[in-house]
């Protein structure tokens, strides 16, 4: 594994290995001294062409906890606003010796271009590209699901076989949904996408997931977890963008409120990738209920990103034999 661009390219074994490593990383984060010397002297560049709070802070925290040097780059206030291309930005970072580039870009496929262009020798980690993929978010969701729903004890080595997960909301614009469908399918979970027909992409029937237009019917099938997606108003032109008649109508049909929360099975958990639109896709009752693991997802995000950085940066895959010393 040289880059992490998409959850679709992860094998079952690789995915479980990332989750197991994340488990060990999470254990170190319960200590008084949280910093590990593992990536000392390595440089991680956070290349963010799109606004982000939690993903950038999460990657920055993860890299710093592993003692890597972190350079934060955001398009605002950089030469990108003067018209610099991705190529020239990448070449600049290469000249500064970046070992890993964490990239978020509004264009789908920008991380793939960066990884395969030869502009940088570093590992490329996709932190969200357009409406394509957000692999570390899917990994932290899978980690959270595994921790809560695979029967207690140490979950190392387990996958998500047999779990039923409903992903609800703006699937059309959601890279989180795309990454999760592929990863959860790889790990053996059954995924149901729930959205109004206007917020489902063309060709969704080819995805390894069921599709439903009715949230209440899906809740009646007793899913183990519900993942709410944010209504991405910035990707829509007007308030509903022509995708739904009005925000109130969307909330009626697809919002998670106290009534729907009560109809869910007792063990079921609620996930949300954040940032939440309280009152639109999720009510305050649901967001603040003890079954919502939304804050825990943020903490797990650091562990998962530490695991990804460790697995991409620490080893040298060209030497095949491990020597005991």
């Amino acid at each position, binding site marked *: 594994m040289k880059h992490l661009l998409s959850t679709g390219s992860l094998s079952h074994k690789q995915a479980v*290995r990332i989750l*197991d490593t994340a488990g060990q990383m999470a254990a170190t984060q319960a200590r008084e001294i949280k910093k590990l010397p593992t990536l000392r002297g390595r440089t991680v560049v956070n290349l963010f062409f799109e606004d982000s709070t939690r993903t950038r802070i999460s990657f920055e925290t993860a890299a710093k906890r592993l003692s890597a040097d972190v350079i934060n780059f955001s398009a605002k206030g950089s030469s990108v606003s003067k018209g610099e291309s991705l190529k020239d930005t990448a070449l600049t970072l290469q000249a500064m010796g970046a070992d890993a580039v964490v990239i978020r870009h509004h264009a789908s496929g920008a991380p793939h271009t960066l990884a395969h262009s030869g502009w940088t020798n570093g590992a490329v980690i996709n932190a969200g590209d357009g409406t394509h993929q957000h692999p570390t978010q899917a990994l932290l969701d899978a980690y959270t699901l595994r921790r809560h729903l695979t029967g207690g004890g140490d979950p190392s080595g387990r996958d998500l076989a047999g779990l039923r997960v409903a992903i609800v909301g703006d699937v059309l614009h959601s890279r989180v949904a795309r990454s999760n469908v592929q990863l959860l399918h790889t790990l053996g979970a059954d995924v149901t996408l729930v959205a109004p027909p206007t917020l489902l992409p063309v060709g969704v029937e080819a995805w390894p997931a069921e599709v439903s237009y009715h949230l209440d019917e899906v809740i009646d099938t007793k899913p183990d977890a519900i993942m709410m997606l944010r209504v991405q108003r910035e990707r829509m032109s007007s308030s509903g963008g022509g995708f739904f008649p009005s925000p109130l109508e969307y909330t009626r049909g697809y919002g998670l409120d106290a009534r729907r929360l009560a109809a869910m099975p007792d063990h079921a958990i609620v996930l949300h990738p954040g940032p939440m639109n309280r009152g639109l896709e999720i009510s305050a009752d649901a967001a603040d209920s003890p079954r919502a693991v939304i804050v825990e997802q943020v903490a797990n995000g650091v562990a998962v990103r530490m695991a990804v950085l460790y697995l991409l940066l620490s080893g040298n895959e060209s030497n095949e034999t491990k020597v005991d010393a």
Partner: protein
Amino acid sequence: MSSALPTPEQPDQPADATVVLGGPEIARALTRIAHEILERNKGGADVVLLGIPTRGLPLAQRLATRLVEVEPTLDAATLVGSIDVTMYRDDLAQHPTRTIGSTDLPGAGIDGKVVVLVDDVLFSGRTIRAALDAISDLGRPRAVQLAALVDRGHRELPIRADFVGKNLPTSTTERVRVLLDETDGRDAVLIEGTR
């Protein structure tokens, strides 16, 4: 010291491997180390055995059992922990990515205790260097001591074992392997690569 001929029906043992310690020798060495630990520390009251995964951990557990046999007031469960040193190694960039093991300290922690690190083979000393760094991030023990089943020499750092099961002069081209019942199905110490 026993030296058996290689037996071809054991698949984990190449034809050029020599058995230098068998099960009974390993058991005797561990019993002696257990007594030395108690003698050196005037009892086992403050002792914490930290095994370095993979094979240091079962060795630490066996030592704990023996400490409890000598001093029945001790509790084997609170005596043993594991300490993973992977993230503290200085050779991560030279090898394929290593899988991280787990670190479990006994409930009372290691502050003010006498930590005895337990590993199977002491070679360059770099694993122990990493373990010392890991310990300093986990607490402040009163003292740290080192127990190794086999000391094969070729140290690259100023590190010395306090308790050694067997000193085994080797050449750097040879490979010393410790097999334990818990991880490999039998007890043996092998030297491979000798002709």
